[in-house]
C-alpha cells in the first residue's frame, strides 16, 4: 500500500510544519514516510508544496498521483487538481494549517493524542493550535482507515541533518560557510547544534566562499578537523584554494550540494550537474576523494569516511549531494555505520603553496618537483587500495538480470522504489573517486544510466574508468530541475529492457 499526500500553499503558510506533524504521526503508527519539498526563491507568497508519500514498506521517493490534497490556498487546487482522481480526498477552504492537521488525523484515523503531544512539543501558539486542530478533527469523518502497525522506531531526517550529525560524530572542530541554497541546511543544523550545546564545534560564517575555504585551511593547518559547505557557484570560488590543499597536503572536508546551473540557474530546485567539478576542479594534478551519498543513512556513513580519509591522507574529501537529498526527509530503520574518527595527524609546520624543498621553502628544482609529484601519485594509489576495503557501491534488485542500472546520489530512492516493477539489477556508485572496479558486474549486460542532468557525466566517467561506452539511448536523463518519481523510472526503464 502507498498513499501520496500533497500539502501546498503560499510561502509562509507552513506546509513544512504540517508535513512534519503528519509524518511523525505516521511513523509512530508504524508507517514509512518520505517527503520532498518544492519551493520557489521568495519569502512570502508564490506557491510551495511538500509531497509526502507513506507506505507499510520502506519508501524513499514520490510516485505520481495524489490521494490526499491539502490546499492551504486556492492556487494549490488550480495547480494540482489535474493530478487528482475521482477517489482523491481534497481538503480546502480558508483554514489555518493546524485545522488541516486535525482534519487529516481524523481522515486517516490517527489518534488525536499524538497530535496533541506534537503541538505541545512545538510550544509556541499551543492554545490556538489545539483549538484549530480540534475544529479540523471534528469537521471530518475517517475515510482511510489506517491500521495501527508496530512502531518501528524509524529515524526521520533529511540529508543536511545527516551530514551535520556525522560531522559532529567525526569530531568536527570548525564548520565554515557562506549561505547558499541548498547547502545552507548544514550551516543551520550545525549552528543550532552549537546553540543546543550538543557539540563543542564552532560554526562560523565568513564574508565569502574564498574567505571560507582559506580560513578553513588556516584552522586545518593547526590540526583541527574542519569542514566547509557550499553549492556549485560557491564551490567554483573555492577552487583555487582546493588546489592549494592538494599541493600543501592540508586535510579538508568539502560539502558540495548541487542545484541546477549554469550560473545562478534554478537555485531552489535539484540537479546532478556538478559531478565534473567535484572530480576535476582545481589546477594541477592532486589526489582527492569524492563521495556521493544516495540517502541520509549513506550521508552519515560517507561523511564519517570523508573525515577519515581526508585526515589520514591529508587530502581534500568532497561529499557531493544535491537539493533533493539535502532537503527531502526520509524515514529509515537502519543505523548507519560510522567509521571511528581518529585525531588529526596534521600539525603546524612549514606549509607551502609552492612546491617546497625539505626545509619548506619554495623550489623549482626538477628532482624535487618529480619527487613531490610522485608522492602525490603514491597517495592516490594508496587511497585507491584502502578504499577497496570499503563499501564503494551498492547492489540492489534482480541479481542475475541482464539489465543493469547504474546511478549515483539522490536518484537512489526513486530507483529502489521502482525495482519491484522492473527487471533490473541496480548498481549505485558511492565512491566517484577513487572509482570502484565494477567491470565484472557489467559484462555482457544491457547497461542503463540514470541521472538528474542533461549530459550524463556518469556515462563519461564509466567510459574513462572502465573503458565501456554507454549507448546514448540507454541514458535516462531528467533535467527539468525536479527529481525522478518512481513511475518515471519504471516507465523509462521498461522502454529499454
Amino acid at each position, binding site marked *: 500500500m502507498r498513499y501520496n499526500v500533497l500539502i501546498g500553499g503560499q510561502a509562509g503558510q507552513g506546509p513544512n510544519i504540517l508535513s512534519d506533524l503528519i509524518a511523525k504521526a505516521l511513523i509512530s503508527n508504524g508507517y514509512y514516510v518520505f517527503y520532498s519539498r518544492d519551493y520557489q526563491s521568495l519569502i512570502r507568497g508564490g506557491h510551495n508544496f511538500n509531497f509526502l508519500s507513506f507506505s507499510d514498506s520502506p519508501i524513499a521517493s514520490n510516485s505520481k498521483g495524489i490521494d490526499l490534497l491539502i490546499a492551504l490556498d486556492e492556487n494549490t487546487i488550480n495547480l494540482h487538481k489535474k493530478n487528482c482522481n475521482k477517489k482523491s480526498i481534497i481538503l480546502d477552504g480558508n483554514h489555518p494549517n493546524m485545522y488541516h492537521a486535525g482534519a487529516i488525523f481524523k481522515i486517516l484515523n490517527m489518534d488525536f493524542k499524538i497530535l496533541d503531544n506534537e503541538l505541545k512539543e512545538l510550544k509556541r501558539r499551543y492554545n490556538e493550535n489545539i483549538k484549530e486542530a480540534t475544529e479540523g478533527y471534528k469537521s471530518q469523518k475517517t475515510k482511510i482507515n489506517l491500521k495501527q502497525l508496530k512502531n518501528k522506531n524509524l529515524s526521520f531526517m533529511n540529508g543536511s541533518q545527516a551530514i551535520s550529525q556525522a560531522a559532529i560524530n567525526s569530531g568536527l*572542530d*570548525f564548520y*565554515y560557510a557562506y549561505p547558499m541554497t541548498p547547502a545552507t541546511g548544514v550551516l543551520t543544523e550545525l549552528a543550532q547544534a552549537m546553540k543546543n550545546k550538543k557539540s563543542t564545534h*564552532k560554526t*562560523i560564517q*565568513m*564574508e*565569502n566562499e*574564498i*574567505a*571560507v575555504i*582559506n*580560513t*578553513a*585551511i*588556516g*584552522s*586545518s*593547518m*593547526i*590540526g*583541527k578537523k574542519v569542514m566547509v559547505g557550499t553549492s556549485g557557484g560557491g564551490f567554483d570560488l573555492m577552487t*583555487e*584554494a582546493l588546489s*592549494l590543499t592538494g599541493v*600543501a597536503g592540508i586535510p579538508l572536508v568539502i560539502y558540495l550540494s548541487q542545484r541546477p546551473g549554469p550560473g545562478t540557474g534554478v537555485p531552489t530546485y535539484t540537479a546532478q550537474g556538478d559531478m565534473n567539478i567535484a572530480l576535476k576542479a582545481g589546477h594541477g594534478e592532486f589526489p582527492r576523494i569524492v563521495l556521493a551519498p544516495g540517502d541520509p543513512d549513506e550521508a552519515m556513513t560517507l561523511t564519517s569516511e570523508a573525515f577519515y580519509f581526508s585526515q589520514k591522507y591529508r587530502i581534500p574529501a568532497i561529499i557531493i549531494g544535491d537539493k533533493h537529498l539535502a532537503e527531502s526527509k526520509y524515514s529509515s530503520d537502519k543505523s548507519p555505520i560510522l567509521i571511528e574518527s581518529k585525531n588529526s595527524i596534521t600539525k*603546524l*609546520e*612549514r*606549509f*607551502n*603553496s*609552492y612546491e617546497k*624543498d625539505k*626545509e*619548506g*621553502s*619554495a623550489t623549482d628544482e626538477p628532482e624535487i618537483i618529480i619527487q613531490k609529484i610522485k608522492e602525490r601519485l603514491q597517495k592516490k594509489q594508496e587511497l585507491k587500495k584502502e578504499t577497496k576495503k570499503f563499501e564503494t557501491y551498492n547492489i540492489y534488485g534482480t541479481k542475475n538480470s541482464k539489465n543493469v542500472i547504474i546511478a549515483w546520489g539522490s536518484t537512489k530512492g526513486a530507483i529502489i522504489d521502482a525495482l519491484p516493477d522492473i527487471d533490473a539489477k541496480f548498481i549505485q556508485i558511492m565512491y566517484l573517486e577513487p572509482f570502484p572496479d565494477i567491470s565484472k558486474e557489467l559484462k555482457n549486460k544491457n547497461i542503463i544510466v540514470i541521472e538528474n542532468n542533461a549530459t550524463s557525466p556518469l556515462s563519461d566517467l564509466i567510459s574513462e574508468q572502465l573503458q565501456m561506452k554507454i549507448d546514448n539511448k540507454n541514458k535516462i536523463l531528467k533535467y527539468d530541475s525536479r527529481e525522478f518519481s518512481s513511475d518515471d523510472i519504471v516507465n523509462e526503464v521498461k522502454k529499454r529492457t
Partner: protein
Amino acid sequence: MIRTKTKPTWCPGCFNFQILAGVEQYLKRQKEQHAIVTGIGCHAKMFDYINLPGLNTLHGRVIPTCIGMKIADPKLNVIGFSGDGDAYAEGISHLIHAARYNSNFTYLVHDNQVFALTVSQPTPTTEPGFIDKTTPFGVKTPPINPIKLMLSAGCSFVARVYADVKQISNILEKAKKHKGFSFIEVIQPCIIFHPDIGVKERTYMIKNHDTSNLSAAMKLAEEFNYTDGKGKIPLGIFYQIKKPVFEELL
C-alpha cells in the same frame, strides 16, 4: 635559528632585506611561538628565509589564513605579510572584513606601489602617470589611500612605517602588544620598478597625536595621498583603540 638556509633571491639592495632584518630583530626578542603567512610576490619570499611554521599561501589570501589559524589557536602569535597587490587588489575584501572582525594578529603590507615580481604592472596604490608595458598610456585612476581605508573600516590599530630595520622591529613589538588586528603599511620602494623619488626625505614620525582620535588620524592620513611629490609623510601609529577580539567572541 631564525633564518632558513635558503639564500635570498631579492635584487641586491632590495628594501625587503631591511624588512627581513627588522623582523629578525623583533623575533630575536620573542620567547613565544610565532607563525607566519605570506602571499604571492616579492614580499612572499620572507617565508623562505624565516624559519617559522605557517603557510606561503595563494595570492590575496593571507588574511583568511591568519584568521583561521587564530580561531584554531588563539594563543599563537601570527604575523601575515602581503604586498600591495595581495592586500589592496586580489584580497581587498578580506582586508576590509579583517578590520571589522578584529582577529588578534599582525598584518604587514610591503607596499612598493607596483607588481614587481611580474615585472612592473600598476597596483591599486600606483600613482597616475605611471607607465609600463601593460599601461602604455599611463595609469589614469587615482590610487587608494590604505591608511584612510583602514581607518574607515574600523581597524583597531593602523600604522605606517618606512622599510627600515628599526622601524619594522619597533612597530612589530607594538603590534604584538595590541589585542586585535594590527595593520601596518610599509612604504617600500622597489629599486627596479618603483624607486623612492624623494619619499623618505619627506617622512616624519608622528608626535603629539591622540591615537584614539579618529578624525585627527584621518587628517594625518590625508597628508600623503600616494600621488604627488608634495607635503610631509607621517609615520608611526595613526590610530589605536580597544575592540572585542573575533576569536574571543566565537
